[in-house]
């Protein structure tokens, strides 16, 4: 298995819940799609050309400040469980990781990671630059990825069309090549059944939503990834401002929904969040989906101050560390399918017990009692 401790903070600073609005927003990501002018795009490349693309990108990256100290992975040479591990940490996409059993990796695919930024090489585009930060932090995340783009662009000739802008393998990314997304937790809007109306509204004004793992992933644990739909015809600034404005609005709606629930359905809400906590604290088997849903309940309870002193950071870490490859990594071996829910429950119990132990017994009783 690969040693992810090589990465500063394991490539997971985005989990630390330190960013703005962390009670509602898990993380912010901005990615840019870029291609090298002198190479064919990914569907027309053979392994030899992809090797040379990877070598060029690595050579250019080595001379930059933003990626000069990057940890490098040859994704195509990793075992399945390691690729899953990187995918679960949001460092590589499904397309690059091929995390399904028997999934085929693309020869020549690579990953460079430094600080809170990374570059996937030979994904759908030659380069996918991304920066990922904790909380609602579009500005800093954009500044980070844009700096990388400039640094790399000075050393690599990017495919750029005078009218269409940056050219990409799929026309849906042409222009800025920018996709900014904010991972937001919306249990209030789900419980008050407002969510569909809001998501529908968002799609009408140029946004799109996805699940925890981006394109093609289902929404679990009331976590929605909101992002811009189009990439051409607006400046990067306009795309980011538009997304930022709408995310702030959604956050307001969510806050309002939570206050309504707290006012009109106090007992039901309290019962719901404490049941979620109780199940996570004592269950002996947990499926991934159930874990996500229960974590959503606890996260809501923590956000509303109903469950005192369980840290958001701990809840964020559980999102990642309860996934199959992480459970396997913790055991240092591949787990049988039926073993996974048992290991997951044991891990969650252990983490919450340590959390309660650290914070004292008051962590297990609501602030109104006692």
């Amino acid at each position, binding site marked *: 298995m690969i040693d992810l401790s090589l990465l500063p903070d394991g490539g997971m600073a985005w989990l630390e819940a330190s960013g703005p609005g962390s009670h509602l927003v898990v993380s912010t990501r901005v990615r840019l799609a870029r291609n090298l002018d002198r190479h064919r795009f990914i*569907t027309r490349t053979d392994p030899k050309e992809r090797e040379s693309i990877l070598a060029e990108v690595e050579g250019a990256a080595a001379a930059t*400040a*933003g990626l000069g100290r990057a940890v490098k992975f040859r994704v195509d040479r990793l075992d399945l469980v390691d690729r899953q591990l990187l995918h679960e940490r949001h460092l590589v996409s499904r397309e690059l990781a091929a995390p399904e059993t028997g999934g085929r990796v693309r020869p020549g695919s690579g990953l460079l990671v430094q600080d809170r930024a990374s570059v996937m090489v030979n994904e759908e585009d030659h380069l996918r630059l991304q920066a990922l930060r904790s909380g609602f932090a579009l*500005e800093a995340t954009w*500044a980070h990825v844009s700096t990388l783009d*400039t640094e790399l662009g000075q050393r690599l000739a990017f495919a750029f069309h005078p009218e269409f802008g940056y050219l990409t393998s799929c*026309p849906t990314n*042409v222009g800025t090549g920018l996709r900014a997304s904010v991972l937001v937790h919306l249990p209030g809007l789900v419980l008050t059944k407002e969510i569909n109306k809001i998501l529908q509204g968002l799609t009408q004004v140029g946004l799109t939503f996805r699940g925890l793992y981006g394109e093609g992933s289902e929404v679990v644990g009331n976590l929605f990834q909101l992002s811009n739909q189009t990439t051409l*015809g607006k*400046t990067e600034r306009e795309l980011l401002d538009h997304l930022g404005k709408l995310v702030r609005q959604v956050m307001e709606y969510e806050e309002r929904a939570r206050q309504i629930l707290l006012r009109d359905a106090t007992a039901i809400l309290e019962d719901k969040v404490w049941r979620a906590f109780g199940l996570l604290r004592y269950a002996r088997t947990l499926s991934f989906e159930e874990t996500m849903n229960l974590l959503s309940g606890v996260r809501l309870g923590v956000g509303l101050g109903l469950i005192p002193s369980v840290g958001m950071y701990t809840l964020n870490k559980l999102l990642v560390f309860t996934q199959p490859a992480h459970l396997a990594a913790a055991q240092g071996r591949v787990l049988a399918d039926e073993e996974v829910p048992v290991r997951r429950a044991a891990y969650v119990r252990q983490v919450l017990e340590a959390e309660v132990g650290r914070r004292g017994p008051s962590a297990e009783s609501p602030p109104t009692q006692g």
Partner: protein
Amino acid sequence: MKCSACGEREGVVSLTQIVEGDVRTVSLCAKCAAEKGIETGIGLADTPLGGFLAALGESADPDAPLAAALEAGCPSCGATLRDFRETGRVGCAECYRAFDAPLRELLRRLHGSTHHTGTRYQGTEMAAVVSAPDGGARELREQLRRAIDAEQFELAAELRDRLRERE
């Protein structure tokens, strides 16, 4: 024919397998096919891109000019519009010039515009320094500002030094 994996949904892909010398054909639904890593292209049809791709050459009879257009290759990479219809991906940067009209129309449908108004690529360092009247100082200052915004202090220090050299 029902999907032979889940037995619930209608099969849309037929898969021929040779198992120990026996040829077997099974039918799979889109979901099970995707789970087995078999690309069906279904699901694409639900998107604007998919709709456009499906419409490309829908009316194609073999003699129509459209059919010929579908087979014409990009002079640089050899990809055809038919390839694009099948994969949803273009073959190279040159394809955007070779298939200007249909891709322009697609970009307009997808994004509501064909005109990039965002950051313009400045070219590699050599090209940028030669073309910038102040030797790239303005660009460097802008980069420095962004580096500070991003708390990339190592980079900021390097940029500051380069800016000093130039000024």
